[in-house]
């Protein structure tokens, strides 16, 4: 970049240092219980910690100074970095770890950056769980060019093109963006979640010639920010995440200052975040299938020697494969691991120092270091953390997570989506205190359920999750896939009806409640011989209470009136019902009355 001002050479040099900020904490619980022992960024993907991929990616992009901000178990990250190649004298960039134990959101980190004035020029902001091979230099140049032209431009978000249904998309991170076609300026940014319909403000379209609405983008939380961004976080202390920031800019935009955010779309490179277990699975597969090249297992470690063979089989040093064991495809096996005979392994990662017995079948599983699996076990689509022991004849169904030091078996079958931890739950969190005493006996009991030699306690992730986390609690793709299908059909069905039904009607739940209430009232009136006037009064008050429109009321009342005679089977009841109901039906609008009375007469004869 050409020097802009007349500043002296020292200034110039400082400006040229490309800085990056890595947020090595997710500030959520997606990976608990696993992350209780190890921060997310150090979890292994294909036997290499995630952080390693992120750093390699930044380093390849020419970043010279990296700040890693961490809070939860931050000291582990610090120790890791201190002992890694990044702190060698040969390291191409300086990596410094900043512990921020009190931070509770990304906003806090950026405010801290502003406080310490760490960044001097445009910097790259990434979260610590990004695995990517984006070539940043072009995007950086574009960013600088745009900044020269447009002073109000403050941020480039980098997004990857990934159509809906792409496996590196997860539901939680589903976004739609409205982008001006020519300039790629972001005009609207929205999370999709469970929404069936997405609202876009009208002025997005009226103020611009051509606007693209893109639902095929994956926000990989890599962005190039101008130094003004941390300042803005400081000025707006309610910004917690980058999304808050983006939304804030886009809305503020129209009122006071015109800051702009642009998006840079990549389509032939890889980028994804290991944001939950589902994504952990997807990203691991992509890494093994080498979509992230050059950041593939054998390139990302320098203390381990990995050989890459056909069908994407990666074998480290000192791997012992017994006779008759089959390593099919897409498999990574760490050093010092032994596989017994007739063992079948496919689509899986096995860590260092594992002992796998005979006749074991492992598919789609992530087995970390020092895991022992005894003979005749079957593991499918699950995560087994360090030091897990699976005794003989255990069948682990898809979607299980066996956290640190758990032992299960022998001779058990773990149902789908079982989460096990090695210690009782009570030290989970302070707000569960009141329950813990009662629960303790309960918790210790299920131990037998997981086998005679087991050391395992169930973990209820759902207990402390807020509503946003519900999306992810079915962590494995199996469940989410089926959800998706259902959703699709129902949304289409609703499309058809949406065209017809009046928009002002209350949500169906209310209607249902109202109906059941009304039925109850009517039956009670019948039993206790209330006068018709009272019944009418009661129905009217119910109508007000549930805020039911006249049309709906008429409809539901007819339904109730027709339904009622069938509920009381006895024939002689009918005349009685008639006597009560006729005045009620007289209250209704005339057209309905005629139909209804006609029907009653018919029944009468029957």
């Amino acid at each position, binding site marked *: 970049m050409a020097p802009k001002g007349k500043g002296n050479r020292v200034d110039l040099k400082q400006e040229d240092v490309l800085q990056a900020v890595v947020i090595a904490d997710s500030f959520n619980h997606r990976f608990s219980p696993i992350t209780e022992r190890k921060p997310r960024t150090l979890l292994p993907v294909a036997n290499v910690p995630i952080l390693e991929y992120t750093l390699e990616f930044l380093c390849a992009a020419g970043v010279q100074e990296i700040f890693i901000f961490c809070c939860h178990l931050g000291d582990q990250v610090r120790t890791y970095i201190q002992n890694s190649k990044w702190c060698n004298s040969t390291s191409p960039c300086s990596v410094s770890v900043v512990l921020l134990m009190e931070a509770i959101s990304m906003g806090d980190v950026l405010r801290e950056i502003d406080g310490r004035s760490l960044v001097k020029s445009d910097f790259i902001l990434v979260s610590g769980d990004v695995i990517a091979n984006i070539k940043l230099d072009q995007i950086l140049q574009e960013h600088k060019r745009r900044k020269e032209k447009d002073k109000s431009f403050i941020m480039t978000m980098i997004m990857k093109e990934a159509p809906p*249904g792409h496996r590196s998309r997860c539901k939680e991170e589903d976004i739609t963006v409205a982008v001006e*076609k020519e300039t790629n300026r972001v005009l609207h940014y929205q999370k999709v979640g469970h929404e*069936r*319909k*997405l609202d876009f403000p009208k002025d997005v379209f009226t103020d611009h010639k*051509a606007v*693209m609405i893109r639902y095929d983008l994956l926000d990989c939380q890599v962005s190039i920010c101008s130094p003004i961004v941390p300042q803005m976080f400081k000025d707006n202390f309610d910004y917690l995440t980058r999304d808050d920031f983006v939304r804030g800019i886009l809305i503020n935009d129209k009122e006071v200052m015109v800051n702009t955010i642009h998006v840079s779309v990549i389509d032939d490179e890889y980028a994804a975040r290991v944001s939950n277990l589902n994504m952990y699975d997807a990203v691991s597969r992509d890494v093994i299938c080498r979509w992230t090249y050059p950041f593939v297992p054998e390139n990302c470690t320098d203390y381990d020697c990995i050989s890459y063979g056909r069908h994407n089989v990666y074998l480290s040093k000192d791997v012992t494969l017994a006779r008759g064991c089959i390593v099919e495809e897409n498999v990574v096996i760490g050093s010092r691991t032994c596989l017994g005979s007739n063992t079948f392994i496919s689509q899986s990662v096995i860590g260092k120092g594992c002992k796998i017995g005979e006749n074991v079948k492992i598919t789609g599983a992530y087995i970390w270091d020092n895991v022992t699996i005894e003979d005749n076990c079957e593991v499918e689509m699950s995560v087994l953390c360090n030091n897990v022991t699976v005794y003989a004849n255990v069948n682990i169904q898809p979607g299980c997570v066996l956290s640190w030091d758990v032992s299960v078996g022998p001779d058990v079958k773990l149902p789908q989506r079982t989460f096990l931890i090695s210690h009782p739950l009570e030290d989970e969190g302070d707000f569960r205190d009141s329950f813990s005493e009662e629960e303790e006996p309960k918790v210790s009991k299920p131990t037998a359920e997981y086998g005679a030699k087991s050391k395992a306690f169930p973990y209820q992730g759902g207990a402390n999750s807020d509503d946003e986390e519900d999306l992810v609690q079915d962590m494995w793709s199996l469940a989410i896939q089926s959800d998706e299908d259902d959703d699709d059909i129902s949304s289409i069905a609703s499309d058809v009806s949406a065209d017809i039904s009046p928009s002002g009607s209350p949500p169906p739940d209310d209607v249902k409640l109202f109906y059941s209430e009304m039925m109850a009232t009517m039956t009670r009136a019948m039993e206790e011989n209330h006068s018709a006037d009272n019944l009418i009064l009661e129905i009217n008050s119910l109508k007000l209470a549930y805020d039911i429109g006249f049309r709906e009321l008429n409809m539901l009342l007819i339904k109730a009136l027709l339904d009622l005679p069938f509920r009381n089977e006895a024939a002689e009841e009918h005349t009685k019902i008639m006597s009560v109901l006729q005045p009620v039906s007289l209250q209704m609008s005339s057209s309905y009355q005629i139909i209804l009375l006609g029907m009653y007469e018919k029944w009468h004869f029957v």
Partner: protein
Amino acid sequence: MEFHPVIMAAGKGSRMTDLTSQCPKALLPMGNMPLIWYPIKMLEREGFEEAIVIVLDSFSAEVQKVLLEICNVKIRLDFVSIPDNDYWGTADSLRYVKDKIKSDILVLSCDLLTDLPLHRLADVHRTYNASVTVLLSPLQEQFSEVPAPGVKSKRTERDFIGFDKNGDRILFMSSEADMENSVKFRTSVLRKHPCLTIKSNLTDCHLYLMKKWVVNFLAEYKSISSLKGELIPYIVKKQFAKPKCQEKDITHNANMSVISEDVKTDIFSFAAEDKLLVILRGMSSWMDHSGDMSDCYHGGNIRCYGFVQDFGLCVRVNTLGTYAEANKQIPRWFSLLAPDVEMNMIHTSATVKEKSQVGSDCILGEGVSVGEKVSVKHSIIGKHCTIGDKVKITNSVVMDHVTISDMCNIMGSVIGASAHISEKCELKDCIVGQSQNIIAMGKFTNEAIVDIDKMMEI
């Protein structure tokens, strides 16, 4: 014939009432030819041999006479007249001629000036086997900013049109007036078409290619009265609806009960595709989209496509501004629009006296007589006009049989047929209605001088 052309020439010209109060829009002079001549010429150019022309009852004879006798049109025209006072929309007209339509149709409006090679549009239509294909063109800036002669009224009629990733399929259509504060998009639609481009700078040129079933559908759904305002948006919307239990209907066909008879056949039963075609598509590797594993067109039978003509010439003459501007440009465009017709800028029978200047981009019609020291620039003068001495005419349109007396100065105005302008008048950006008389020394700026009584009829 693959497409049967239907020309909608029954428009009353509601956006330019000052001009159309006595002369139907189709016959407004455009470079001394009636407006409708240009679309007919285009059809001739493209090799069509016959066309249906829909005209208003009261003007039917006139239009026929003008086209057949004066303009010498070769194409076989089938004139269908519709009643004047029923306010029929374009869809109503199309419904009316339904029985004459045996194939897919090409609907076009009489006020379209374009040099588009029609096969470009047909290519899109055929490629995707579309239900409807619409011709769109970017708003030309020279036209959107033209100060219209006459009383100023600013009204924006922008449309918002959403395209898929390829830029062909129309997924969304809404006019600015219909939009509320926010625009809603269904997630299910976005999932199928994850990259939607909404353009606000396009105009619908009222040229459509339609499948025959669309006409059948129109015949059934009588509430739809306009093509652009109702039918096209309806079809665009229905692309994503799911037919209500279509499969069920087929299986229950054998023992069809009484109930199913009064169920109105929905649009999907009209849009049913040839079974062989479906099989063929299943076997083909051709795909209209990428990024997911679903069927071609996502299994939908209703498909609406658009072709954006972002080159050449494409103008709809439906407002005063466009009318005045197009008239000024027509000498340049004439060779594009009607390459086979020799255009005499100054008709052989026109007489121009000494010391008068007529610009090279002016058209003087048959029997025009121009006095001494007259200057005519960027203007069109209709047939049998008489222009006195020392008259200045710039940027104006003068229709037939107009008399302009000595010393007048006319700028940027439109003068209706048989008007009489007395001496020393100055008209700037005005409209003078048919047969108006302007007294001597009159000075007008930005005014519409028309007969009030006649206006009330419209």
